[in-house]
């Protein structure tokens, strides 16, 4: 088991004919993801040869889902069109299958576009949006697996640790840390660093809590907002599996945006100190340095009788 996606997930690539789309579609196929088609309006009917696989391009998501029976899509379209792409995917999955996973990699989508798109997705409760501005989601398999996004596939291995993070590269650090103590991953999710996004920490924690394969969780936050505090409070009540947490940005000055649109301390709120404190009071194991995550995770597993 794993959460939301697995080795049998059939994935469409929105914006497949763009350079990012083509590049990452190839990488995903290389990893083992079942890419069943691509979507670029106006380029329907073309066929791309990617890593030895022939991939058909469709004009729209409705047509593509009907033709391929896909249950997930990943979006590499430019920020101007990304919110529309999210809504098209959400509506098409909702209407045709009643459910679907939409992963939006695109960075730089206007916040008000996302307010609208998230409200639209939320009206279609079977549809899950991951991102935007995120590395995506990966469920490593015994050989290959299902990688939907831009993370380097080769660093992962199937295992029992669920990882959720706001940051892309820090997720990779976390993966490397689990590997450093010999642990693999059930599913790793980058929820993205934008102020308004789809799937949040709590959704992921709930998913991991219910997943048989997952035995422990690594959760990586960053400054800005109160999602980490909310998740910690929720976890204290609802999660029985051990959680290891880290928050980036302890040294970030207030009022300055740290790369991610959402990573800003404003009005004295959203500091790393508050988030670490919330983690601690919720019984979450805290790593003060990402290079410590492995060691802390080992302690957590041991204390839970899992090592």
């Amino acid at each position, binding site marked *: 088991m794993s959460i939301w996606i697995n080795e049998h997930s059939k994935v469409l690539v929105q914006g497949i004919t763009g350079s990012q789309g083509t590049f990452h579609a190839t990488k995903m196929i290389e990893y083992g993801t079942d890419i069943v088609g691509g979507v670029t309006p106006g380029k329907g009917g073309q066929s791309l040869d990617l890593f030895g696989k022939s991939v058909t391009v469709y004009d729209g998501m409705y047509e593509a889902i009907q033709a391929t029976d896909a249950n997930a899509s990943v979006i590499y379209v430019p920020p101007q069109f990304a919110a529309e792409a999210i809504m098209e995917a959400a509506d098409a999955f909702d209407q045709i299958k009643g459910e679907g996973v939409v992963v939006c990699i695109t960075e730089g989508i*206007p916040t*008000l576009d996302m307010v609208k798109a998230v*409200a639209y997705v939320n009206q279609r409760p079977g549809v899950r949006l991951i991102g935007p501005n995120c590395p995506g989601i990966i469920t490593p398999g015994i050989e290959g697996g299902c990688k939907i996004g*831009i993370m380097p596939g080769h660093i992962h291995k199937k295992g029992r640790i669920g990882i959720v993070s706001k940051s892309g590269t820090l997720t990779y*650090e976390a993966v490397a840390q689990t590997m450093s103590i010999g642990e693999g991953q059930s599913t790793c999710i980058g929820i993205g660093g934008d102020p308004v996004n789809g799937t949040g920490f709590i959704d992921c924690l709930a998913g991991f809590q219910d997943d048989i394969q997952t035995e422990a969780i690594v959760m990586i936050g960053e400054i800005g907002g109160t999602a980490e505090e*909310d998740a910690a409070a929720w976890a204290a009540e609802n999660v029985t599996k051990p959680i290891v947490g880290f928050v980036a940005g302890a040294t*970030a000055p207030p009022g300055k945006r740290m790369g991610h649109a959402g990573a800003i301390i404003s009005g004295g709120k959203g500091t790393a100190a508050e988030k670490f404190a919330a983690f601690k009071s919720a019984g979450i194991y805290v790593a*003060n340095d990402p290079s410590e995550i492995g060691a802390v995770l080992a302690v957590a597993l041991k204390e839970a009788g899992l090592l």
Partner: protein
Amino acid sequence: MFRKAGVNVLDGVHCTSIEDALSAYDSLGSKVVAVKSQIHAGGRGKGTLYSPESGEKVMEGGVKIAFSREDVELYSRNILGNKLVTIQTGENGKIVNNLYVEAGCAIAHEYYLAILVDREAKAVLIMASTEGGMDIEKVAENTPEALHKVWVDPAAGLLGFQKRNLGMDLGLSGAALKSFFGLLGKLYDVFVKNDCAMVEINPLVRSEDDEIIALDAKVSFDENASFRHKEWEDIRDLGEEDDAEVRAKELGLSYVKLDGDIGCLVNGAGLAMATMDVIQLYGGEPANFLDLGGGAGEDTVNAAFEIILEDHNVKGILVNIFGGIQRCDVVANGVLASVERIGLEVPLVIRLSGTNYKEGRAIIDASDLQTYSVDTLAEGAKKIVELIGGES
């Protein structure tokens, strides 16, 4: 912007010299006027002006009420060209090059109003308080219950009853409530149409004849939406922004200058923050936040390296790359090219991980560059702190 949208504002004139300010005073025809420092930061009323050369204090308060032509001259002189330090500018303050001279109005009450995106609710949030004036940060901290809040349903937009209820929460009724109702609708339209990140009206005032007027406004925009707002380029006051930050942005980098001495070159915002955190954890002080973004080419790496070295506080550099889209070999080549071009007089620690890390390390090792290769972030942070002679 507000005036064009039909929002009630007072008459006023933008000025860049004392002469401008005096003729503005003459033309406004109001005996009492406000003389306001114009910088992109809040807390101006409670700020202090200093001479940029001597550092001496010139005047308390960046917003002054002038009761005569002589007052206007005095305040303009004290403001223009001097450095205004407010709660939001940080210690260094900002030089004031622009003034706004505004007609007076008979104020019955001052309110606070802000529109922003609430990331938790994923909706636009309107906040208002009867405690208008200068210290809204304190109101929010000390008496958050005095802030009245309305969330805008993304589907339905701002509804009439929400405007009315918020007005009534502020204790408004009759003509003032009607005026507030109209103003809030227009402000919300301005917010949405212009992709604002935040609109803050402080103070919003009720005049003695029950008109609601936006007396002072601070607006910030959602930079992600700049592709549909070509007009922002005219508004932006580049002179005020840190030059290196502006150049970095043009190159697709995120760069924020800090006060320490260890330069950081990292891919990914989260990892860049974590790199700063870990440097501090091991006793050092980061000189900057720098995120290369996803999949930077050699040129970008090169430019990033140069921006870091421009900061003369930098005594050492930590490169921390976990390649996903970013290929480590590209970073390695970029770093080498930079050093070749501009030289390197400070120690350099490089940590390469992820996509093509073997190729990247091979490139570094094959060069005659004096560097220290490490496997993890913690090692890298310890090493650079040690090399520049800090504690570790």
